[in-house]
């Protein structure tokens, strides 16, 4: 089968003629469909060869149509997916993202508490040591959350997509010497000893690539996250109060300096999903909407006024950043979710 891989993409005329063929097929199918519609009685009542002929013909055309579609898709083998996820797991745990490291450095410059400053400097030293020695900067290598943005022109071959991702987690945690921190049944609580199952979010996007973002999420900060339905009338002030209350309740347990992801709007499920997406945004980058960007700034200010500080041991840097994501919501609702990300703010994105 032809694929639009990098090897044969240069054969433009072939693609072009495929395009023409595809259109012809589509036109043909439409013609047949309208023929059947107009001659409903014929197809319905005349038994035998005539009907069979049409059915067979339609099947053949549909299959060709599907094959032509496949000509425009890019094949990605499940082994490639497993390998990509595996490497991303340990890379996320060994190498602290640049924006977070810069965040530590900026915070250390402004920190008012001498103890807080000392903690920030030790975190910088810890991250640098981990990178040099290829070892996890934090021992709680977490629940593995995987975001996959799957291009709609991708055809996955060789097996099941979700199984390939879970196999990647298994392989990454074993080969990367990461801690297995997952129990299979939440009530029986027996460790699965391979860090599966991870949580996988998929999104269909234009294009013929898959972007994986692996986010091994520590327990300390995830456990202090929260969601609530506010009354619409509570508005911005209500949102601010809920965020601050959540951060104060977390205190030192969430390992500050933290990154705060806030979701506003959507449904019960959507609001927590966008709060998690928000913690992936770069430290230093604001929301496009000016009023949301303003709210991010105000919240960051307010959070840093709580005095919680690095490790909850006092100081002027409790959070490195606040990112908000929003979604339209029901006229009766104002859902808010706060996802706290600790200073071990792991995230690794790879496009295949």
């Amino acid at each position, binding site marked *: 089968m032809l694929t639009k891989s990098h090897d044969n993409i240069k054969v433009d005329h072939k693609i072009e003629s495929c395009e023409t063929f595809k259109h012809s097929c589509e036109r043909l199918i439409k013609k047949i469909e309208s023929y059947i519609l107009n001659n409903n009685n014929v197809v319905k009542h005349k038994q035998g060869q005539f009907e069979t002929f049409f059915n067979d013909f339609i099947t053949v055309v549909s299959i060709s149509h599907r094959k032509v579609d496949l000509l425009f898709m890019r094949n990605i083998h499940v082994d490639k997916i497993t390998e990509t996820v595996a490497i991303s797991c340990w890379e996320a745990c060994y190498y602290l993202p640049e924006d977070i490291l810069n965040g530590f450095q900026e915070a250390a410059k402004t920190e*008012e*508490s001498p*103890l*807080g400053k000392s*903690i920030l400097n*030790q*975190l910088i*030293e*810890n*991250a640098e*040591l*981990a990178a040099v*020695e290829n*070892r*996890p*900067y*934090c*021992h*709680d*290598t977490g629940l593995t959350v995987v975001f996959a943005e799957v291009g709609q022109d991708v055809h996955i071959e060789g097996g099941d997509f979700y199984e390939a991702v879970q196999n990647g987690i298994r392989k990454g945690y074993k080969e990367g*010497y*990461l*801690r*297995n*921190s997952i129990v299979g049944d939440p009530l029986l609580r027996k*460790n699965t*000893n391979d860090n599966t199952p991870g949580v996988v979010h998929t999104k269909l996007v234009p294009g013929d690539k898959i972007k994986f973002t692996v986010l091994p999420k*520590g*327990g*300390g900060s995830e*456990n202090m996250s929260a969601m609530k339905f506010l009354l619409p009338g509570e508005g911005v002030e209500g949102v601010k109060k809920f965020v601050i209350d959540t951060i104060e309740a977390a*205190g*030192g*347990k969430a*390992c500050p300096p933290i990154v705060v992801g806030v979701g506003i709007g959507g449904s019960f499920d959507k609001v927590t999903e966008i709060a998690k997406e928000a913690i992936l945004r770069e430290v230093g980058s604001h929301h496009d909407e000016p009023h949301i960007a303003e709210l991010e700034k105000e919240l960051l200010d307010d959070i840093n*006024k*709580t*005095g*919680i*500080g690095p*490790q*909850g*041991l*006092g*100081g*002027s840097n409790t959070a490195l950043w606040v990112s908000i994501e929003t979604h339209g919501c029901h006229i009766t609702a104002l859902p808010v979710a706060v996802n706290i990300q*600790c*200073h*071990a703010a792991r995230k690794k994105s790879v496009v295949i």
Partner: protein
Amino acid sequence: MTAINITPPLTKEDVMKLKAGDEILLNGTIYVARDAAHKRLLSNLDNGEDFPIDLKNEIIFYAGPTPPKPGQVIGSIAPTTAARMDPYTPPMFEYGVKGVIGKGPRGENVKEACKEHSAICFSAIGGLSALLGERVKSAEVIAYDDLGPEAIRKLEVENFPVLVVYDAHGGDLYEQEIAKYKKA
């Protein structure tokens, strides 16, 4: 501030000298135990049995390290959230444990138990795991092998940095420091 060197086991006099905010470098033996090990230790006590190892006057470290790479003594290690051990800590202090190392603030019952039984809550920096892993010189499982990652481990540490967060006189470093930087 210069750090105070401490080599466990701790005497009552050692404990009484320490104040919230003191920076400590631990040298010598500490014991790793977390949720499942605590649960079992305390059920030993309830049944009138002894602990499998003598933990009187010792320091317990709430932690779960990553597996060591070939050639390493231990992987990365740092404390887990101490508050999860709140129900277990007072009876452990009553038994005779003199110090615990965790991260994050604790409940009132633990603060009270520090005063009542002359014991200390230390904190190591949560997630400082690569750096703290380097300060561990040997590690061995010494009890409850079947608990796997939650088994009790004996660690030999060198210049292992911790802070006194709750002392035996009612001092509370979290409360004290946060109040200084809170802006109304």
